[in-house]
């Protein structure tokens, strides 16, 4: 999904904020010489700042991501993956505010004891912290935060694949349902959803033999979908794609069923994480491509899911898997570089990205410091999300 749920995207990039932070960071002139660096070896502790929302509108993403990171760090330390060196997390809560995230990022850069940062999940926060990271030469690994302007240089990395890169995995499912016509209702405020609606789906249609016969754009503020759904249903499409943010999905699914549509419904990962629960049986059948499902095949996934369930007594969400893989990416980078200075970690992250690795989300590859994977197909069956397809 990468930032789909992040309503704050619409507020724009806080350029002024970033510029102000840049001045502070430039003055600091850390130059990537973290105090934890030890020439020729690893320090006893590698301190990492985690800037993830524990409160505010995207808290459910932040909290889940933190669980994944904590699980990975616990495992890395317990297995002595880095020998006697321990990774230590310091958690900061930006509480949905780009301004707070930028302040926390500036503090991390100025405090030489921090070797790297796990960046915020919201795109507007990430867009504020990325210029600071680049200027302060602080490696930062994001998850979610899917907009442009986040991965902008050699110190910014992202452990969530863009939805547009794996949406096509649902192609076979669409083909199997003999879909010839498609209607689309999409949230036009978010670039990722807009791109899927206006570019990815029509391109898939050209390949798979279906055409988009009607579409209706809605905005972040839309709460009643009766009119756009009515507009799309009028064309009697075989399938409808609802590309909406988290809280919009249950209402739209309910109103789609009330409008009499009982065909295939495509969604996006923002419908996951329990967002369709209030729709109950009206939500049944919504199907979407995702970067992770706990039932997907693969030893590394199974190991992650077992560990997660043992620790938290619940099934992991995709955000937790992304957090887990972020932390392992970092640990592998430290090991690869043989050092824990900021520059060592930056170089290590690049090397690991070039090689790829098996993570909680399966086989991971990277393009320009941005994650890529095949994806899986998930469906809400009225009570829970189930795996309906995987190429992994």
């Amino acid at each position, binding site marked *: 999904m990468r930032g789909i749920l992040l309503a704050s995207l619409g507020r724009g990039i806080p350029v002024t904020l970033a510029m102000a932070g840049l001045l502070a960071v430039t003055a600091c002139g850390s130059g990537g010489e973290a105090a934890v660096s030890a020439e020729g070896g690893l320090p006893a502790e590698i301190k990492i700042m985690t800037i993830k929302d524990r409160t505010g*509108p995207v808290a459910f993403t932040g909290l889940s991501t933190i669980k994944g990171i904590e699980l990975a760090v616990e495992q890395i330390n317990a297995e002595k993956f880095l020998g006697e060196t321990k990774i230590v997390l310091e958690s900061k809560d930006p509480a949905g505010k780009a301004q707070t995230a930028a302040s926390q990022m500036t503090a991390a850069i100025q405090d030489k004891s921090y070797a790297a940062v796990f960046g915020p999940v919201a795109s507007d926060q990430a867009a504020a912290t990325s210029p600071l990271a680049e200027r302060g030469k602080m490696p930062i690994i994001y998850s979610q935060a899917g907009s442009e302007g986040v991965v902008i240089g050699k110190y910014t990395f992202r452990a969530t694949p863009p939805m547009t890169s794996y949406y096509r995995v649902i192609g076979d499912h669409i083909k199997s349902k003999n879909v010839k016509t498609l209607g689309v209702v999409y949230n036009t405020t978010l670039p990722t959803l807009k791109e899927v609606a206006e570019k990815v789906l029509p391109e898939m249609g050209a390949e798979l033999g279906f055409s988009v016969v009607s579409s209706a754009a809605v905005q972040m503020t839309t709460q009643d979908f*009766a*009119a756009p759904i*009515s507009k799309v249903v009028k064309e009697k499409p075989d399938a409808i794609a609802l590309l909406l943010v988290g*809280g919009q999905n*249950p209402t739209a699914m309910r109103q789609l069923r009330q409008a009499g549509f009982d065909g295939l419904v495509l969604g996006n990962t923002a419908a996951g994480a329990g967002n369709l629960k209030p729709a109950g049986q009206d939500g049944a059948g919504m199907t979407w491509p995702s970067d992770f499902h706990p039932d997907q095949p693969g030893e590394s996934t199974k190991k992650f899911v077992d560990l997660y369930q043992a620790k938290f007594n619940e099934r992991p969400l995709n955000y937790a898997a992304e957090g887990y893989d972020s932390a392992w990416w970092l640990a592998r980078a430290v090991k690869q570089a043989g050092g824990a200075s900021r520059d060592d970690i930056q170089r290590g992250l690049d090397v690991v990205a070039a090689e790829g690795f098996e993570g909680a989300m399966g086989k991971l590859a990277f393009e320009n410091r941005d994650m890529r994977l095949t994806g899986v197909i998930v469906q809400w069956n009225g009570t829970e999300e189930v795996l309906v397809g995987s190429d992994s």
Partner: protein
Amino acid sequence: MLQDLINALSLGSIYLLFALGMSLVWGTVGILNFAHGAIFMFAAFVSSVITDQVRLPLPALIVIGAAVGALLSVAVQLLAFQPIMRRAKDHRSGEMQILIGGIGVAAIPLAIAEEVTGSNPFGFAGSSYVTSTFSLLGVRVTSTQLMVVAAALVIGIGVIVWLRFSRSGLALRSIGVDPETASLMGVNRRVLSLSTMAVAGGLAGLAGVLLTYNLGAITPESGDVLLIKAFAAVILGGVGSMAGVIVGAYVLAVAETIVLTQTSGLWVDAVSFGFIFAVLLFKSEGLFGRREVRRT
């Protein structure tokens, strides 16, 4: 076309139900309550929490929602707005401070709901009420939509009748025109303000429950979104005119529906704000508002 009209009527009723309480307080007591959205949301949230534990029918949830809304609204008035007004240098600065106070107060129920729900949407899955869908001549309408439209119109007209023809309604309107003179005429401003806040909160709670049923689910942030729409409806209709709010809500909904069905939908929010801008520019008192309202 008929389906679009029904959709517009339903959307307008949603805006109206939400805007009624806000307009009532703003047009009479003179408080623009930015906590109204939070009261709306929190009433629905409490009802949702209760219905998760006990299976309840729709009327019971309406009573709970209205009661929670009324209590919360009275608490806001007693603990925030009245102290602000008492300490304010003059009435005008007090009104300005209340705007900020309302935003601050709204953050508390919002934070509680976000904490409990994890910012996920919530609804009334545990309620015994099930929405039915009726289809006639290709037009589909749900029982909840019909209920929302009926409630909005009945309550809207009821509030107009109350304000115009009842003794307490007249007293309330007199506060909106000239509070000092109203006091001299024996109107107990404090009690009446408190009662008005209770009614407005009750309406917000009622709207919260009905809209959650209608939409299936709302999020902790839903109230803030509706606040903007209600603001547009009130400005369009005219502050202080309940009939204006009714017209404003439906005009806004019809305009949005036309934009949505005839264009890509990108311009829907621009229509809301465009209405506010146009009205402020060419008819600042709104379609039905009084040309001059003096409250100090």
